[in-house]
């Protein structure tokens, strides 16, 4: 610890702390623009200049580490004049006219900083040099004329997302923000996560969907989780007059710390789906509007006639409450045997079986992935699904963390990997054996391997690769202290576990939908078999189902579907029930790493919409079935592959 004095106040702070952070912790306000609490200090804007006793010039507090007995002043005339001068120069540089900018009126940190200093005008007029503007991206507008060169976006793109798309071209006043080598953002390596937009202090990077739809002071914000996948990233849903304005990553969320992906931030905005507004019953081949009572009566009578012939599916994107109630109604009370989720447990079934065999949890959590020093990704493309887990890996690759990608399909993270094993199709089991043989050959196995060193060559050839490939791969993961193996599902889980034990690795599966794990824990994970089924009930909510499964449903005589949106699924249904979407309902989710989260409601649904949870309650009433909702106990009935936590 060192002692410092700021504005006459003596403080004890940890060594290595910057003057800015020390001041902030002591409640002393120093205005900044380029600083961001989640990014490394850059010292670009010079707004945070302070007077340090003994220093020849004013010092940027954001990059200046404290030293013992340092005396700092943040409120002298010299400092205040410097702040105004810095702002004067920034305003004179580019087009910072407020009346025609999206972020004006509270959302612009540059404008707020000027107000803070009481600036009524710009002492220097702008030089009116136009800079390029890039509107090639579907979601993001890059407006260099509004840029103050703080490089928050560049740092966020590299440090938080690990994508390194954004950078600067030219020098000094000519500096311009570019994507890749100066190509249009829409054609660049940008993965549309929008983190740059979220950190931009001015209107240089704005999201075209939410632009001009409401300032931060005019919107309501709901802190909740994203249900786009099983990671459960923390988000803030901004709404105005009960309509969605924007989704932002929650900086306070422990898991994602502000970062989210395209699916979390932009997809919900871009989706253009027809909402189903009212229950409908098919009459003479066309769906006709009906009341809830009529629609549920039709479904109930079909179910009642032979409960055994009912196949029931619930979306694994629904809250645990819904899945639990669903299983209780169809499985326990009605005795239907074909009760499963829309993803049919394809990612969790083997995991659950293995956990049962082992009688204990065997997976780690995502914090372990963040602190890993080598990662092996097995047949999961984190550039497409569960993208934020990919960010955790990509962003540390520059700091010497090693990556091995093993996949029989094209994997988007392959290009970032130290070794990328492209397997021939269907050779995953052999690849895992070959890898353990390679570990044996390197002589670094901690325990007995499933395959011996002598088998390496033949095993490698079966996967279309060479022994050297596997030796390289083994070296990538085995030469580190905290390796983590990440995979999508439980296929070959025994072999994966065996490798993990050889190299002392932790392991984690990312599973599928937001409630993949909960569905599994509640036993809703059977493979779908529609043989002899006469009635189908799909509590789908807002999930988009594959055409393949919809085709399979077609052969069932009576089909009832609850869905938020019109789709080819609802068009084949005999009874369609409307549904709330994820923003209009509340409930719990159990993430891939076993964390139980509450997803809060941020929008009030239209009058005639019911959540699948409420609908199941009404259907149970119609069927004369009594339900209790005890999911918090029920999820502990089976051994979970990963320990559950709050």
């Amino acid at each position, binding site marked *: 610890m060192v002692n410092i004095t700021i504005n006459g106040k003596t403080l004890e702070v940890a060594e290595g702390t910057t003057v800015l952070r020390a001041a902030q912790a002591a409640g002393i306000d120093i205005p900044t623009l380029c600083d961001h609490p989640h990014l490394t200090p850059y010292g670009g804007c010079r707004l945070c200049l302070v007077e340090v006793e003994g220093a020849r010039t004013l010092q940027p507090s954001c990059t200046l580490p404290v030293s013992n007995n340092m005396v700092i002043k943040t409120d002298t005339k010299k400092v205040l004049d410097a702040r105004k001068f810095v702002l004067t120069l920034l305003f004179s540089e580019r087009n910072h*006219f*407020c*009346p025609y900018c999206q972020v*004006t009126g509270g959302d612009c940190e540059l404008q707020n900083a000027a107000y803070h200093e009481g600036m*009524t*005008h*710009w002492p220097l*007029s*702008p030089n009116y040099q*136009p800079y390029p503007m890039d509107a090639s991206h579907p979601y993001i507008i890059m407006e260099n004329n509004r840029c103050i060169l703080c490089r928050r976006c560049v740092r966020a793109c590299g440090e938080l997302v690990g994508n390194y798309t954004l950078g600067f071209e030219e020098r000094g006043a000519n500096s311009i923000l570019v994507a890749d080598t100066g190509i249009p953002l829409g054609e660049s390596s940008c993965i549309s996560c929008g983190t740059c937009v979220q950190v931009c202090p001015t209107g240089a990077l704005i999201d075209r969907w939410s632009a001009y739809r409401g300032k931060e002071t005019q919107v309501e914000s709901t802190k909740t989780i994203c249900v786009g996948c099983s990671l459960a990233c923390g988000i803030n849903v901004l709404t105005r007059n009960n309509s969605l304005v924007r989704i932002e990553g929650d900086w306070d969320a422990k898991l994602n710390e502000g970062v989210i992906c395209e699916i979390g931030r932009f997809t919900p905005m871009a989706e253009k789906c027809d909402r189903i507004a009212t229950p409908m019953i098919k009459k003479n081949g066309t769906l006709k509007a009906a009341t809830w009572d009529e629609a549920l009566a039709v479904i109930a009578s079909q179910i009642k006639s032979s409960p055994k012939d009912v196949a029931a599916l619930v979306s694994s994107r629904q809250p645990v409450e819904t899945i639990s109630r669903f299983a209780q109604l169809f499985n326990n009370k009605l005795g239907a045997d074909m009760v499963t989720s829309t993803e049919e447990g394809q990612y969790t079934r083997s995991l659950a079986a293995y956990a049962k065999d082992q009688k204990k949890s065997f997976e780690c959590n995502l914090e372990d992935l963040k602190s890993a020093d080598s990662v092996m990704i097995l047949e999961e493309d984190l550039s497409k699904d569960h993208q934020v887990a990919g960010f955790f890996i990509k962003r540390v690759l520059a700091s010497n963390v090693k990556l091995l990608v093993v996949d029989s399909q094209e994997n988007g993270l392959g290009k970032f990997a130290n070794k990328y094993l492209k397997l021939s199709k269907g050779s995953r089991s052999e690849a895992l054996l070959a890898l353990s043989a390679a570990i044996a050959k390197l002589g670094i196995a901690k325990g007995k391997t499933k395959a011996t060193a002598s088998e390496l060559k033949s095993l490698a050839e079966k996967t279309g690769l060479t022994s050297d490939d596997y030796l390289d791969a083994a070296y990538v993961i085995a030469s580190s202290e905290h390796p983590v193996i990440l995979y999508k599902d439980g296929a070959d889980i025994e072999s994966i576990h065996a490798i993990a034990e050889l190299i002392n690795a932790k392991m984690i599966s990312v599973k599928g939908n937001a409630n993949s794990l909960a569905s599994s824990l509640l036993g809703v994970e059977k493979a779908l078999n529609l043989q002899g089924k006469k009635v189908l009930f799909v509590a789908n909510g807002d999930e988009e189902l594959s055409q393949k499964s919809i085709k399979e449903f077609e052969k069932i005589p009576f089909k009832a579907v609850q869905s938020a949106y019109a789709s080819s699924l609802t068009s084949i249904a005999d009874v369609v029930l409307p549904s709330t979407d994820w923003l209009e309902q509340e409930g719990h989710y159990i993430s891939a790493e076993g964390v139980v989260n509450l997803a809060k409601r941020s929008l009030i649904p239209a009058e005639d919409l019911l959540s699948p949870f409420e609908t199941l309650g009404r259907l149970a009433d119609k069927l004369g079935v009594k339900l209790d909702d005890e999911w918090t106990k029920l999820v502990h009935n089976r051994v979970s592959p990963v320990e559950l936590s709050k």
Partner: protein
Amino acid sequence: MGKPKVASDWLAGCAGCHMSLLDIDERIAQVLDLVELRSTPITDMKHPDKSGVDVGILEGGINNSANEEVAKMMRSRCKLLVAFGDCAVFGGVPAMRNFFTIEESLRRAYIETESTDGSGKIPSDPELAVPTKVRALQDVVPVDFFLPGCPPEADTIFYVLAELGQGRIPELKGNTLHWQ
């Protein structure tokens, strides 16, 4: 000593700031108790008194030689000059054209505009004012007080006029300081 004399005029602006001035509604009577309103675009007198006024208020930026003359005349005839609204303070919306050349702007305005009939023609009568780059008032004449806003809010305008009318220099901060 009589009431301070106030004169105003508008240059390259949209008259919105003067409309916002009228939005002080009945409080204009209170202002008139404090000051003597002389020439304004909305009164009969069109030029500030040759003998001078105490406060001159100018809305709009300077976008041609005529604006420049008006600004210089006001400056020479007033003791305290107020830049009234974003265009006078910063250049404002008209200054968007500074990112293009004057020729490009004129061509767009008189020839390429969708509503132009026939081939269009850029006016070139020597009697007309000569267009220039759009400048903030302070780039042409010294300014004593800046009242930003697009437009400034009526309450702020009332506060500023009331303060000036009572011989005080207003201070803009917090709720009264807005640039848009």
